[in-house]
């Protein structure tokens, strides 16, 4: 049965500072609004004293819907809601009129009438607010981590430390990823290989982490808290449930990219080849006297090529003692520690040359000739080197597009996950419960990957806390037209069979991000968004009309 609304209106003049509102007039007029049983004025509603007074009035007057006319809701809404719950009211029975930022402060002249109208809008809406039930949707706490490189393994370890079960999936037969391809991090005591083997060991000894190698995702269904993932391992296909999925699928490099117009050669080589040489210098016929690096021709966005160049240049100096020249357009040293690496390289005698126009590269007497105009010196430079290390372009790994369309998640212009959407940045995606960490978000280094992992883990923990269902499909009105399923940006709606046997749309409380796009678009008006329901928005509009 509908309980008749008993409205209490609590005005706050913010320490008597809202001088262009005549609160006595507001109080007098607001008392005449429909269903209002109390109007009071405070100067510090958000402080202990003000809150306590409000609570006692709410209890005394048996107020069941509260209107607060004060500062902007995002400032103190949670304080007020909590207080109301103490008084035994559902937190959703509160409507706030923003009479400070959007009224008193926004206008110079007397705005008593406007304030009154804002309060009437809030009161109209308050009358229609429904108590919200907190539903504890069961959430699967096991996490699937896709990609067994550094980022993937680290994510698995961090989650397992919190006592969570993790399945770590890798496409290749062994864990490891790209980390082993680095020669070393200059100035670090441990080598990448050592880091890798220690992480791998930790994974292997961990009871909470299950490892699936040579495994690939073929389908992802469901939503945050309850994903069903179909995985193929050779001939075998398995279907498993997870609460969240962390993608750490990494990146790939195109050695000697197309736009570089170079062909691999005995002495035009990739960074990886150079690393192999550095690992076994004894295998070289003779020590190379000069080694050149060319950078920044095909891709200005990536940091990784700069990082490997600086590291490898220093390693060449140390292990081979060759002369090292680095040709580049712009040197990016914005990652942690890179400035130091750069300085050290210069101190050790690595020569950096800045070009504007692409260097011309040719062969001469079995050596590689690089001709470029050094814009800083303003002169043509000709270098003959024994080896030329060419830039590698950082690209999304194979299968990224397939995964992206399977997940219904977009990629950025370079094809990496998590484009620069400010709200989702850095690791979230438009699908709640799906996160991206490390190299698959564009190029990354260990520091950035580690930050990513922490944010993803924190976000997942937040996902586990119970959420209120605010957006719901009324099954009897649903025509199963699938519109909401098609438009939901978070893939939070699916078709389910209800008891009557009919199929209707159902919104997952966990996956829903509460945008109301489905509510607005439903042609049968079958979706209700508590707090922003049609009748509630229309009631606010009605209040504007009433004074006309």
């Amino acid at each position, binding site marked *: 049965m509908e309980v008749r609304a008993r409205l209490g209106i609590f005005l706050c003049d913010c320490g008597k500072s809202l001088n262009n509102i005549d609160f006595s007039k507001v109080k007098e007029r607001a008392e005449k609004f429909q269903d209002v049983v109390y109007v009071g004025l405070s100067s510090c509603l958000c402080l202990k004293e003000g809150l306590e007074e409000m609570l006692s009035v709410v209890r005394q007057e048996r107020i069941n819907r509260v209107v607060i006319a004060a500062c902007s809701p995002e400032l103190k809404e949670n304080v007020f809601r909590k207080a109301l719950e103490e008084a035994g009211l559902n937190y959703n029975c509160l409507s706030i009129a923003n009479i400070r930022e959007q009224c008193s402060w926004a206008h110079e002249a007397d705005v008593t009438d406007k304030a009154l109208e804002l309060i009437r809008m809030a009161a109209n809406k308050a009358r229609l607010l429904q108590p919200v039930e907190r539903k504890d949707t069961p959430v699967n706490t096991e996490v699937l981590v896709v990609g067994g490189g550094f980022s993937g393994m680290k994510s698995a370890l961090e989650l397992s430390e919190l006592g969570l079960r993790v399945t770590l999936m890798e496409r290749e037969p062994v864990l490891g990823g790209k980390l082993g391809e680095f020669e070393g991090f200059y100035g670090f005591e441990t080598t990448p290989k050592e880091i890798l083997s220690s992480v791998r060991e930790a994974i292997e000894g961990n009871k909470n982490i299950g490892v699936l190698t040579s495994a690939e995702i073929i389908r992802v269904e469901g939503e945050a808290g309850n994903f069903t993932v179909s995985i193929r391992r050779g001939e075998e296909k398995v279907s498993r449930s997870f609460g969240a999925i962390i993608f750490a699928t990494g990146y790939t490099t195109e050695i000697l990219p197309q736009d570089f117009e170079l062909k691999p050669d005995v002495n035009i080589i990739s960074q990886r080849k150079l690393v192999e040489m550095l690992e076994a210098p004894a295998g070289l016929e003779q020590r190379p006297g000069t080694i050149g690096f060319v950078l920044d021709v095909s891709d200005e966005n990536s940091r990784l090529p700069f990082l490997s160049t600086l590291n490898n240049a220093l390693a060449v100096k140390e292990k081979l003692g060759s002369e090292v020249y680095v040709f580049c357009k712009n040197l990016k040293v914005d990652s942690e520690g890179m400035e130091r690496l750069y300085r050290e390289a210069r101190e050790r005698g690595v020569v950096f040359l800045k070009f504007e126009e692409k260097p011309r590269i040719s062969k001469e007497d079995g050596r590689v000739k690089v001709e470029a105009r050094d814009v800083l010196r303003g002169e043509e430079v000709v270098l003959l080197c024994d080896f030329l290390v060419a830039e590698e372009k950082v690209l999304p790994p194979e299968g990224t597009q397939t995964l992206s369309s399977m997940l219904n998640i977009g990629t950025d212009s370079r094809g990496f996950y998590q484009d620069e959407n400010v709200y989702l940045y850095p690791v979230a995606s438009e699908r709640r419960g799906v996160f991206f960490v490390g190299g698959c978000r564009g190029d990354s280094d260990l520091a950035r990957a580690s930050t990513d992992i922490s944010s993803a883990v924190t976000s997942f923990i937040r996902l586990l806390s119970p959420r209120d269902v605010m957006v719901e499909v009324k099954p009897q009105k649903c*025509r199963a*037209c699938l519109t909401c399923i*098609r438009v939901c940006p978070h893939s939070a709606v699916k078709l389910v069979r209800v008891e009557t046997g009919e199929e209707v749309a159902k919104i997952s409380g966990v996956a829903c991000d509460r945008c109301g796009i489905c509510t607005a*678009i439903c*042609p*049968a*008006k079958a979706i209700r968004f508590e707090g922003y329901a049609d009748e509630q928005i229309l009631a606010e509009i009605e209040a504007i009309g009433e004074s006309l």
Partner: protein
Amino acid sequence: MIIAERKPLEEIKNMLAGYKKILVVGCGTCTTICWAGGEKEVGVLSSQLKLASSGEGNELSIVEATVERQCEKEMVIEELRDKVEEVEAILSMGCGVGAQTIAEIFEEKPVFPAVNTTFMGMPEKEGAWVEMCGACGDCFLDRMGGICPVVRCAKGLLNGPCGGTRKGGKCEIDPEKECAWVLIYQRLEKQDRLDLMRKYYEPKNYGAVQRPGRVEAATA
């Protein structure tokens, strides 16, 4: 599903000229699903009619309703019986079948169509539908790779594409639309059944459905 489109307001206003009390009836089935005449569109049209009539100083009184399936007499009676009494005219937002069903039941009230019924189609994406079937009464999709040239080819050709096919296999009349015959070719080629396309098809029996059409189930 049946696809329809809202008529321009001007046309609807002209139909309603002289009537003061109107019942706007949506249909909860096809026209809801194709966004032309569900509960929401009933609200939008009613709002528009109110705005238009009050602008002319002659406000209409509007009753809104939505019938689960306007083509079902029982449902129409159940939902509209009482509401019809208070109005002078009925505006149907169902397909042509729905409007005629209402007209047949409430014979003393004029019934006006607020939508144009356009075709039978499939949703392409949200808010977009494409024609798929022309109800020819003589289905031959088995030989056409599951693509009906009767409605998906601009000319309804049966033996292959016309010479107007545009570059990339687009239709002569609209570079945005696919040439059905190129689609049929590709589909049959994929299934290794191109022989079906190479066969000659006789002129179609356009009399397969005798107008007015009527079907009665043998077991009825």
